[in-house]
């Protein structure tokens, strides 16, 4: 199988080369374009090599299996060999077609390969189950080739779109290529990553790059807002995916040690997983994993009711719309569902969730698209519609094959959409440049710009799914699948009906495009007095029209892509057996189209079936006839908005306003309130621990000491006296009003503590405390001088007592907590545990066995805990060293705060403000 380094190189090439283009001089536009195109081209070439390599390997395995079967002369064993020998897939098509019609393939259906074609692993964060490994199965490779292939053409188109004449075009291209390279890398990562969390990382990167590209025009507030909308929506879904991946990994610990964190593991253990999913009542976590992951897929792929962000995303430059928001990124959700399909289709909920959502999205998008006038918005809503169809396709796949999950030609469906939608956008952007994007203003545009309009009209044929395009076959396949599923699940008839209505809408749009652009009667015309509803109608980048060879880059990539529609449509066997068939999921080894419809659908087959028309073909004919009528009908041409455009503003308002209310409730701005919150939380949190200690029968050191102290009061009097001073000064602080007096009391309290340390023979602590008190008193005095003169307000006695009570309660709590920590004998509840002091001593200068042996042994320092005799210091620098590192960082930040809140004074000299000459040279004194 492919080397992980090859795939990694393919994934990283676009962003790496995109960054390299930054080093070219700004006005080198053509070299920049060529260099940037190299990135996705390299990725495409490498992935193609991997695909061919995989095919050859499969061929070899297949031949091997056949030879073995011949040797055994046993048909059944051949069958088992195929299952065990894994992906003997697309080539098994013809081979199995004959045998499987005989015995209903109940057992062999939907068995993904037991050894999915993964690459090796490059270790990254093994403890978090994040490593670099790639799954180069058909679905992933197909998406990879789609992304890098269309990406290459989009790089060229960007040159045509941004042009070189505009004032900002050099700057636009300068920023555009690295950003688009970043997106291509992210998208390749999503589709090729084998580790689930790696997929998530790349998934979020696509959201970020989409955000950057939608808000491309930084000075257009509306575009920025729409970018935020898209980012929040897909980011929300990303959180769902994150949760789903984590839940899935944790829930599958019973199947694989440590849980399933790789897609290939999921496919390899599909039998066990499918069994659990069929009895999901016992494994509710798997259900949640699916629901959460589907939230990710649904938001990314703009499923109702989260579809609103996709039409909004059309604020992006057209190369972005053609690439991210129609051909590739929005299909990430579809991809994810396709990835989950072989396993999760066994879930009863799978079709019940996906079919209704997908069908509603499909119908809704189709109907709203019919009501738009802005070309980009029309195509945006048909994209929403098509994404709904793709989702519904997977849902129906779960029903379609005698109750077993099987998906027919899903890759064909996805490729088909990319092959007509990207050219539609490319042509829409091009025509927006030279004329307008409002379809009512484009009457007869074909005669002015035949190349651009020709591309659009050809692509519109794909949108309408007319015969001779891949689209036609794809729609037939979908209708066929729905028809079959409907025979077992009658509710799917509704989906079939919705598909026909959507197809009517698509045909109507195609008819409008043709009649309008050619200037035929029945085309769209500008009607006077009609309000302009188009959101973002009119391009954001107005550029002068270019002439010359390079100017053709504005339509040529689109024409190239759309030609695939017709090549595949007219010569289907070429497309399937040599191209798309290689990538279809293994489950389709037993596709019923091949078995029951008699092989790959081609023109001959379809012509033959006209004499015995099947339901799918009748549906298509109805759609085409009705579509032409609807397309020509005048009353249905109004321009309406989309009510779902209000979902995001409402959510945004709720978040901002509600958040603001809560913020003002909690953040009063009064230091006293904050302190009260903090201390109150402390009391509540730790009060129960003190309570538990008081009620326990553990005497603790306090009881021992107090008994001893009562006997020998005279010996303890220095400590007791100092302790009383500490308490007295502490209580005096809240009782006094003048700041400076309080500071002095605080200092007295601290110095009394120094005395306590000295009495109990801790000279280093005493010294530390002494130095600390000096510095803090000096700091306090200085700060107090800087504060505005205080207003002496008479504080009521009850207020003072309230303060004292709080202080005493908190002080008592902290003191008692210290005693508990130091004296509790944990060995009662936890055998082998020691008092805290003993543990600290052992970690500092004891060895692993105990305190006594290695103390002070200079010959064996390694055997000792921290290697030092000063417990306090060893705690600080050694076994709690990480805390210290954090603390000194906090100290540094505090000092930075002082310096930044007290900026160096600027002196006013001769009416001009100049920097203080003393402080300017960087001396703070």
């Amino acid at each position, binding site marked *: 199988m492919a080397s992980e380094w090859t795939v990694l190189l393919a994934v990283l090439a676009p962003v790496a080369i995109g960054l390299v283009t930054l080093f070219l001089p700004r006005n080198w536009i053509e070299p920049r374009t060529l260099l940037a195109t190299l990135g996705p081209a390299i990725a495409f070439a490498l992935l193609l090599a991997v695909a061919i390599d995989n095919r050859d390997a499969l061929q070899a395995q297949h031949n091997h299996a056949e030879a073995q079967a011949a040797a055994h002369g046993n048909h059944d064993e051949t069958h088992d060999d195929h299952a065990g020998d894994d992906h003997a897939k697309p080539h098994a098509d013809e081979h199995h077609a004959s045998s499987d019609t005989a015995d209903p393939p109940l057992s062999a259906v939907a068995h993904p390969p037991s050894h999915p074609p993964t690459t090796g692993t490059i270790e990254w964060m093994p403890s978090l189950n994040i490593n670099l490994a790639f799954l180069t199965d058909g679905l992933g490779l197909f998406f990879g080739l789609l992304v890098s292939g269309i990406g290459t053409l989009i790089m060229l188109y960007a040159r045509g779109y941004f042009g070189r004449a505009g004032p900002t075009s050099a700057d636009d291209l300068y920023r555009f290529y690295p950003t688009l390279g970043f997106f291509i890398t992210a998208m390749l990562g999503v589709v090729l990553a084998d580790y689930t969390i790696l997929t998530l990382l790349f998934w979020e990167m696509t959201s970020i790059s989409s955000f950057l590209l939608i808000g491309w025009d930084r000075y257009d507030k509306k575009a920025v807002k729409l970018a935020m909308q898209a980012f929040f929506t897909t980011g929300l879904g990303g959180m769902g995916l994150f949760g789903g991946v984590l839940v899935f990994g944790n829930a599958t610990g019973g199947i694989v040690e440590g849980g399933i964190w790789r897609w290939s593991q999921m496919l390899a253990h599909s039998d066990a997983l499918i069994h659990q999913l069929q009895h999901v009542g016992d494994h509710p976590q798997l259900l949640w994993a699916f629901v959460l992951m589907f939230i990710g897929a649904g938001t990314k792929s703009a499923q109702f009711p989260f579809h609103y962000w996709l039409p909004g995303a059309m604020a992006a430059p057209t190369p972005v719309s053609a690439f991210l928001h129609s051909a590739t990124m929005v299909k990430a959700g579809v991809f994810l569902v396709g990835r989950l399909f072989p396993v999760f289709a066994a879930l009863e909920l799978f079709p019940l969730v996906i079919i209704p959502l997908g069908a509603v999205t499909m119908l809704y998008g189709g109907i709203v698209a019919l009501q738009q006038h802005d070309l980009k918005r029309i195509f945006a809503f048909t994209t929403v519609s098509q994404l709904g169809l793709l989702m519904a396709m997977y849902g129906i796949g779960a029903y379609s094959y005698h109750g077993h999950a099987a998906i027919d030609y899903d890759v064909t469906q996805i490729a088909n959409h990319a092959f007509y939608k990207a050219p539609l956008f490319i042509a829409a952007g091009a025509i927006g440049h030279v004329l307008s994007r409002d379809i009512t203003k484009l009457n007869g545009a074909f005669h002015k710009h035949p190349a651009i309009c020709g591309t659009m009209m050809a692509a519109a044929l794909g949108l309408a799914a007319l015969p001779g395009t891949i689209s036609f076959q794809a729609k037939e396949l979908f209708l066929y699948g729905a028809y079959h599923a409907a025979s077992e699940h009658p509710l799917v008839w509704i989906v079939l009906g919705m598909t026909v209505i959507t197809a009517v809408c698509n045909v109507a749009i195609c008819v409008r495009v043709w009649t309008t652009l050619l200037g035929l009667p029945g085309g769209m015309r500008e009607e006077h007095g009609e309000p302009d509803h188009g959101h973002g109608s009119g391009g954001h980048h107005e550029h002068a029209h270019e002439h010359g060879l390079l100017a053709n880059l504005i339509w040529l990539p689109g024409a190239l892509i759309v030609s695939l529609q017709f090549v595949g449509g007219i010569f289907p066997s070429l497309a399937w057996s040599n191209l798309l068939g290689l990538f279809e999921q293994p489950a389709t080894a037993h596709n019923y189209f091949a078995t029951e419809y008699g092989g790959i659908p081609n023109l001959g087959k379809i012509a033959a079936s006209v004499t015995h028309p099947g339901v799918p073909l009748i549906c298509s004919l109805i759609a085409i006839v009705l579509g032409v009528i609807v397309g020509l009908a005048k009353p249905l041409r109004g321009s309406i908005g989309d009510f779902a455009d209000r979902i995001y503003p409402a959510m945004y308002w709720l978040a901002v306003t509600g958040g603001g209310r809560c913020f003002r409730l909690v953040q009063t701005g009064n230091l006293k309130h904050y302190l009260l919150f903090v201390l109150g939380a402390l009391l509540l949190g730790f009060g129960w621990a003190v309570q538990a200690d008081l009620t326990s029968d553990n005497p603790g050191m306090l009881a021992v000491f107090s008994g001893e102290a009562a006997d020998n009061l005279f010996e303890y009097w220095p400590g007791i006296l100092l302790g009383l001073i500490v308490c007295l000064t502490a209580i005096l602080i809240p009782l006094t009003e003048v700041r400076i007096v309080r500071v002095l009391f605080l200092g007295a309290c601290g110095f009394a503590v120094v005395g306590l340390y000295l009495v109990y023979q801790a*000279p*280093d602590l005493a*010294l*530390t405390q002494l*130095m*600390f008190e*000096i*510095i803090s008193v*000096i*700091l306090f005095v*200085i*700060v107090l*001088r*800087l504060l505005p003169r205080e207003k002496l307000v008479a504080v009521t006695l009850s207020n003072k007592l309230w303060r004292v009570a709080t202080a005493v309660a908190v002080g008592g709590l902290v003191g008692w907590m210290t005693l508990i920590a130091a004296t509790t004998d944990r060995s009662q509840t936890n055998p082998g545990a020691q008092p805290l002091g003993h543990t600290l001593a052992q970690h500092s200068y004891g060895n692993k066995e105990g305190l006594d042996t290695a103390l002070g042994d*200079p010959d064996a*320092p*390694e055997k*000792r805990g*921290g*290697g*030092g*005799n*000063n417990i*306090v*210091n*060893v705690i*600080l*620098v*050694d076994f709690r*060293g*990480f805390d*210290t*590192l954090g603390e*000194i*960082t906090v*100290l*540094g930040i*505090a*000092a*930075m705060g*002082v*310096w930044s809140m*007290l900026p160096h*004074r600027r002196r006013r000299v001769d009416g001009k403000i100049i920097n203080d000459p003393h402080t300017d040279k*960087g*001396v*703070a*004194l």
Partner: protein
Amino acid sequence: MSSLILRNAMGLIFPLTMVFAIYMALKGHNAPGGGFIGGLIAAVAMVMVRLSHGKDAMARLMPFHPRLLIAGGLALAGLTGVVPMLFDLPMLTTRAPYLSNPFGEPIHMPTALFFDLGVLLVVVGVAAGMIFRLGEEVDEG
């Protein structure tokens, strides 16, 4: 606040205090002391010079911004933490070798000492830096 007695005494007190601060930091691992207390002592000494001699004298004594001390200290402490990772040891692992000393008993030389010196630098930088900056505000009214 510049009394003649303090001013003259500081000439003697300041160097001694600085030496004492470094001594405290170096012996800290096995005896009372450590980087934190060493830093506090050094900071107090510097504050005393600032009080007795004024800010220009302090500027001559320390001709750079105190934030350099903080940055240097954090870098030193961070490096001490990271270096063991290069040898596949956990972060902040300490080795405590005894360096041979021809004039007496072996010297206890833990690698944590560098960490401690980092703490010292940060503490000096923060304490002295804050007081100097705030004192400047007071001076300028």
